[in-house]
């Protein structure tokens, strides 16, 4: 029963997302009516997620900040073209992903990491690091730093499309259907890309995986 619910959650958008989309649509209608300040609420609501997506795609926090700002400005300038057929966050994600893909294609040869620090106050990450190492203190920080670099290196070895799918599904938690809407492709294509990307990541991160 739980497995079927989890599978359904990966395939289609959750009901919470639908309620969230309805609330966003009201704010968008206000902005379209001329209430420019209402757009700030949308920026505050989605800035962390948008920056997170772009950061995980570029592995550079400065580029992530610039691209996220540009995505919000583009959305603000084109807000009158939003008709509400899709949810606002899907529309905003598409703008952000397209801007990032364009940026990555332009700067294909120039890529360097500028990583954020891993917060160990998150219980999930703390448990994971505990499972990976028994070191403490400086040794533990160095291990986490090395693992972080290996993860970003493995992500950058993926193609842009596969990296986008992995970012949206595994890190941001979007469903297959939502990813298909964001990337303007079929759900089958999303699954195929996700399967292939995981295989590549598994081979790259083999030393850190349990046998």
């Amino acid at each position: 029963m739980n497995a079927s619910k989890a599978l359904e959650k990966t395939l289609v958008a959750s009901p919470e997302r639908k309620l969230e989309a309805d609330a966003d649509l009201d704010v968008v209608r206000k902005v379209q009516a001329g209430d420019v300040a209402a757009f700030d609420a949308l920026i505050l609501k989605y800035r962390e997620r948008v920056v997170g997506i772009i950061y995980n795609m570029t592995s550079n926090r400065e580029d992530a900040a610039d691209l996220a700002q540009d995505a919000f400005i583009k959305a603000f300038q084109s807000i009158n073209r939003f008709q509400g057929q899709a949810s606002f966050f899907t529309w905003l994600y598409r703008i952000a992903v397209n801007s990032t893909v364009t940026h990555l294609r332009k700067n294909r040869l120039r890529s360097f990491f500028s990583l954020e620090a891993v917060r160990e106050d998150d219980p999930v990450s703390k448990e994971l690091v505990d499972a990976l190492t028994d070191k403490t203190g400086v040794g533990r920080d160095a291990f986490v730093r090395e693992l972080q670099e290996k993860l970003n290196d493995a992500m950058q070895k993926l193609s842009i499309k596969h990296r986008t799918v992995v970012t949206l599904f595994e890190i941001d938690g979007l469903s297959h259907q939502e990813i298909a809407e964001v990337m303007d492709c079929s759900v089958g294509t999303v699954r195929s890309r996700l399967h292939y990307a995981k295989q590549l990541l598994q081979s790259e991160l083999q030393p850190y995986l349990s046998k």
Partner: protein
Amino acid sequence: MNPESKRKVTVEDLLRLKRAERPPAAFWTTFEAEIRAKQLSAIVNKRPWWHGLSRAAAVVTRYQLPFGAAAALAVTWAGVHYYSVSPSGVVRVQGPAPEAPVAAAAASRTAETAPVPVVLAETSVRRDTPAGVAQDQSARTAVVTATSSHITKAPSEVTVDAISKSPFADGISVSLADYRTPSAEVARRSVFGSDRDFEAGLAPARQAPSDPLARMDPAEERRARLLAPALPAYSATSRRALASDWIKSKSSSDDRMYESMDRGSSDRMLVGFRF
């Protein structure tokens, strides 16, 4: 890896670690200030004119099916409007009687020579016959409407409406008038009545083929030139006209002068003139 830990680490777990990569609080302060400035500049700055083009292109892309259908419909309507043949107002070509055989002869000639297929159409030719002749002359005659590749698609019947509505009405009417006007010379002589009549009519006008070099036999000319002093009548009775009279008289006088030279003495030469 901690061997005592029973937790299995998967790729999904490692990717979940990336969720914990979050920027510090100071990052968001800078982020908010920068996005505020960009938002204000986006409001103040006037968007360039080509952004309107991109918006129009987006609209066209969204409604490409109706736009495409409308364009196809317009092209079809224009084609039908300018090139259709309506059944009313047919201009019947009423030419003189000899036109039918003339056209038939031209058709047969073209069919023999032209490699392209000839399109034949049956057109009723109403012939004006004298009163009392009860013969129905409305014979259905095969008339060539096109004899070459570039006029293969010419219509056999031209409507008045189509001509008057066409933007090229003046040019078409002039061409049609030229086409209808029979060649007076041809019609009178009926040269093209048939192939044989044509050959027979033109045969007397022809000249027999003659080779200019046949009259310029060098051996005969030399013989005539040498025999002229001795046999003055030779040139007159020659079977062929070797040259003009002036050339003959000049050459004979030169030969006489040459023959009259006295070469008896070595130190002097006597030349006698005869008049």
